């Protein structure tokens, strides 16, 4: 029982990271109906920027703030310069473009910083607590706390602010948004910038656990894509729940199903997603999408 609870706690912390990246994916999908396969590598690039600023002697908090701003600008610029020109093209074209972003940013990181693993500054203290025999590390609790803060501030932005209302409207209907006076392109740029910041947060949470490296986020992207699919691509709550579920399923499954072990654990989230989609094609929280032909 204790082992199970331990695995659930560890799984939630891993899941929080998948959830953060899934949130970024869902933000962009909601606004532009595009799956941004480059999200993880753009995030890695921004985490490298933060690391580089630290190396140059900037305090970590300032380095993170500056990199978050750069992440926002980068996301907005990528939308305006790379994605918007092809946004009316076929789905296949757009997929190739965002896959191109994935490759381009991974290559950029390798070129600038090499393939060596770097040690990212610790964001949370090393210790932890033992509660009823279950080990709660400060890192795990910190990651969960950051995810909660991230999800709540996004929810507040979309629910309670005029900017959030405009972002939701621009995602819902371009023509109707235009005739109420919303600059839709500007909103979509903001959405991409925001998603880029959220992805950056995910990368910063991963980096201290694994070491910073150009390929550290690629597996996280697989999990995040599974999480977004599991939750239904149109729902932010779905992305969070999906990410946490996948983290827990992976951790519990790898421990309690003897035939899986560490080799097959990557398959657990995919199997879970497949099972849910068979029962609920729109995902757990997604809305059924009508396709107009």
């Amino acid at each position, binding site marked *: 029982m204790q082992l199970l609870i331990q695995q659930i706690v560890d799984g939630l912390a891993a899941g929080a990271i998948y959830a953060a990246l899934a949130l970024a994916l869902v933000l962009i999908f909601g606004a532009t109906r595009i799956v941004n396969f480059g999200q993880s590598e753009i995030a890695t690039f921004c985490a490298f920027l933060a690391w580089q600023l630290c190396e140059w002697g900037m305090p970590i908090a300032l380095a993170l703030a500056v990199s978050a701003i750069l992440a926002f600008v980068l996301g907005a610029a990528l939308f305006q310069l790379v994605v918007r020109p092809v946004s009316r093209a076929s789905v296949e074209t757009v997929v190739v473009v965002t896959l191109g972003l994935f490759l381009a940013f991974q290559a950029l990181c390798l070129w600038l910083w090499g393939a060596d693993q770097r040690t990212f500054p610790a964001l949370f203290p090393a210790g932890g607590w033992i509660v009823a025999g279950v080990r709660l590390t400060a890192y795990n609790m910190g990651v969960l706390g950051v995810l909660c803060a991230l999800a709540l501030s996004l929810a507040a932005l979309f629910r309670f602010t*005029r900017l959030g209302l405009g972002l939701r*409207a621009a995602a819902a209907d371009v023509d*109707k*948004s*235009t*005739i*109420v*006076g919303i*600059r*839709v392109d500007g909103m979509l740029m903001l959405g991409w910038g925001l998603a880029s910041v959220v992805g950056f947060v995910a990368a910063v949470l991963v980096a201290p656990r694994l070491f910073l490296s150009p390929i550290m986020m690629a597996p996280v992207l697989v999990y995040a894509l599974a999480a977004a699919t599991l939750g239904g691509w149109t729902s932010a709550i779905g992305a969070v729940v999906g990410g946490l579920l996948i983290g827990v399923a992976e951790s519990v499954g790898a421990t309690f199903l003897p035939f899986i072990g560490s080799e097959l654990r990557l398959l657990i989230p995919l199997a879970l997603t497949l099972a849910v989609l068979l029962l609920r094609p729109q995902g757990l929280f997604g809305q059924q999408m009508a396709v107009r032909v």
Partner: protein
Amino acid sequence: MSLLQVRDLYAGYGATQVLRGISLDVRAGEIVALLGANGAGKTTTLRALSGLISARGQMLFDGLDIGTIHPARRVALGLAHVPQGRGTFGDFTVEDNLALGAYTVASRRQIAIDMARWFEVFPKLGERRRQRAAWLSGGEQQMLAIARALMSRPRMLMCDEPSLGLAPSVTQEMFRVFERINLEYGTTLVIVEQNADLTLRLAQRAYVMETGEITLQGDSKELLVSPAIQQSYLGA
């Protein structure tokens, strides 16, 4: 001086030219009807004016050449458009729809005052303020679309076939609202309609369109009794 002055306007979709050089004038405080059969170019005219499609020709709104102005800014200048069909955000609440209508209004206080006023004019919207727009009846959705447009405090309100799919009694109620808005707030109205009889009784002047051109114009009381109109639109 005209509030809206259009000269030689050409517009269309892709290679298809719909408007073939139309000219029209709307004076401040006036109610003008734009009549014509399906496909005559009425909707295209409104879409060109609000900037949803690009157009060639001159469009002066209050003396400003709005052809070169971003569509979102035209709303701030006082040009409001209620598009054909369900001009509302279906997944958004009634309140959110009205808040979106006031997207160009900076003062929160003014937004609250305006919202309260339109809830008074459209009591059913007030009762359902927290419901999603898609759950309202067809008539209520059209009222919401009009109230949404009025939230931007327009000087000119353009309505595209507001009576489409509505019961006659609801249509009459809506036209009474148009009259009231025009009288109380001096809002200029441009109404595109197939229901020529009712519209001509409300409007002071009218333009009739056919295949992308304006073929007839004049005082609506005179048009109401003109043989050409009687034959084509009033089924006499």
